[in-house]
């Protein structure tokens, strides 16, 4: 398939739209991205998880991203000619992962992510607002951000992260259901700065973690049993139990949204022997690479190299978690005292 032509036609299609333009500029891993849409509804849905990254200056834009739906376009968006492209169970198709253009389309959803590596322009299209999966806005434009980082030291990572006020950060990579959200929420409530509990952005050259999304997703049972006081702050109480609970955890407003990583800590639920112990590079790599590259299957080689480098350059630990918040906080405080720089 000629992806260059499809991308170019799609971009022209969007640019020829005559509706009112809504634009926001955000700081993304030390770079600048401009998010453009024609729909207030789309902005209200996708922008809140990124709103804390908003900046006023837009002198130099590293990434231009358009997000549209057919609801706000004069003419509906055209589908590519699929031919015999084979999609895997995650929706990845190697034919749509080309050097100049990346396309991500899961055949069971009518939404498409495209990125031009030459132009640094990304496009997100969805058929209509009502077809957007509930989880998509909790990690807005994740796939496009991922493609944008291909030729940079930046890497999105399926991990939680917290930091101390003096800028020491700890990364918690793990697959879903391993305790990332519980760990980061618990530490954030104990006074540590929340940097993310699902996806964070890492500079793998400088070992810096950037806050990306301000959204927390948590199972309702977990919210109720461990963080019941946060329950009223869930923005989707009326969608229980069909969606996970969604919250916006606020960081310290004075904090810079990034910090230097001191250590990688792999959370593992283990009720019998709780504690933080040294882990091998291999263990840390296994906790972070498969889950991240499962969600973000484009540019696997480049991403794997970056994640491997991060695991190799930082001290790695396992945190065997039990259900006792007091003990866990004490363990982390002791660990912090020993490892902080």
């Amino acid at each position, binding site marked *: 398939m000629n992806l260059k032509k499809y991308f170019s036609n799609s971009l022209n299609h969007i640019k020829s739209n005559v509706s009112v333009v809504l634009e926001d500029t955000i700081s993304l891993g030390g770079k600048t991205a401009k998010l453009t849409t024609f729909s207030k509804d789309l902005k209200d849905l996708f922008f809140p998880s990124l709103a804390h990254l908003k900046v006023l200056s837009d002198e130099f834009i590293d990434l231009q991203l358009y997000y549209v739906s057919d609801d706000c376009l004069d003419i509906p968006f055209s589908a590519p000619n699929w031919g015999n492209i084979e999609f895997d*169970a995650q929706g990845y198709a190697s034919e749509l992962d080309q050097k100049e253009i990346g396309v991500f389309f899961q055949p*069971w959803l009518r939404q498409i992510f495209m990125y031009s590596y030459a132009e640094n322009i990304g496009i997100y299209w969805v058929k209509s607002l009502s077809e957007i999966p509930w989880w998509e806005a909790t990690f807005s434009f994740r796939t496009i951000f991922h493609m944008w980082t291909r030729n940079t030291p930046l890497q999105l990572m399926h991990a939680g992260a917290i930091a101390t006020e003096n800028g020491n950060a700890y990364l918690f990579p793990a697959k879903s259901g391993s305790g990332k959200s519980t760990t980061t929420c618990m530490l954030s409530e104990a006074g540590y700065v929340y940097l993310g509990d699902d996806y964070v952005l890492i500079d793998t050259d400088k070992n810096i973690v950037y806050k990306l999304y301000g959204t927390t997703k948590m199972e309702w049972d977990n919210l109720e049993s461990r963080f019941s006081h946060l329950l009223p702050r869930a923005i989707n109480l009326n969608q229980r139990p069909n969606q996970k609970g969604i919250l916006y955890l606020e960081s310290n407003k004075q904090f810079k949204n990034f910090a230097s990583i001191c250590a990688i800590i792999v959370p593992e639920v283990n009720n019998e022997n709780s504690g933080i112990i040294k882990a091998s590079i*291999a263990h840390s790599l296994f906790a972070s690479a498969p889950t991240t590259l499962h*969600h973000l299957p484009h540019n696997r080689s480049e991403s794997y190299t970056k994640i491997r480098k991060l695991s190799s350059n930082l001290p790695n630990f396992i945190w065997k978690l039990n259900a006792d918040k007091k003990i866990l906080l004490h363990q982390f405080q002791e660990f912090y005292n020993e490892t902080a720089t």
Partner: protein
Amino acid sequence: LGYNWKKVVAADLFDDEYIIANLNTGLYYSVQGTIINVLQCFPFESIDKKIEDFGEKITLVNKKKIMEVWDELISEELIDLNHPEGLLPAVDKEFIETEKKCNLSKYADMQDLLALDPIHEVDEKGWPEINATEE
């Protein structure tokens, strides 16, 4: 011709464990035991000769186990059996003593990625029928 990792494979030795990623399929593997010394020697022409090169450092029992894991690596399609660099002289690596048994573990959580399917039916605008499932 000889043996080497396939181009789509990223294989790294961390301490005494090989972590292998098949970047095409998204499948991951861990290899432990004396075989790591053999894998360190890629590319090479003959597995038998390579094991012989280690002399008494590799016992008969170990050789049997190495061959079992070697066959698994081949059946997982991680090794290029016709690698042109096999004819080049291999660089000698320091022998790593390990007490771990020869073993290949497959990280199969993401195995469903192997299922491939084209789009069968589309609507009048060219978009497939939809059926949302959570990731």
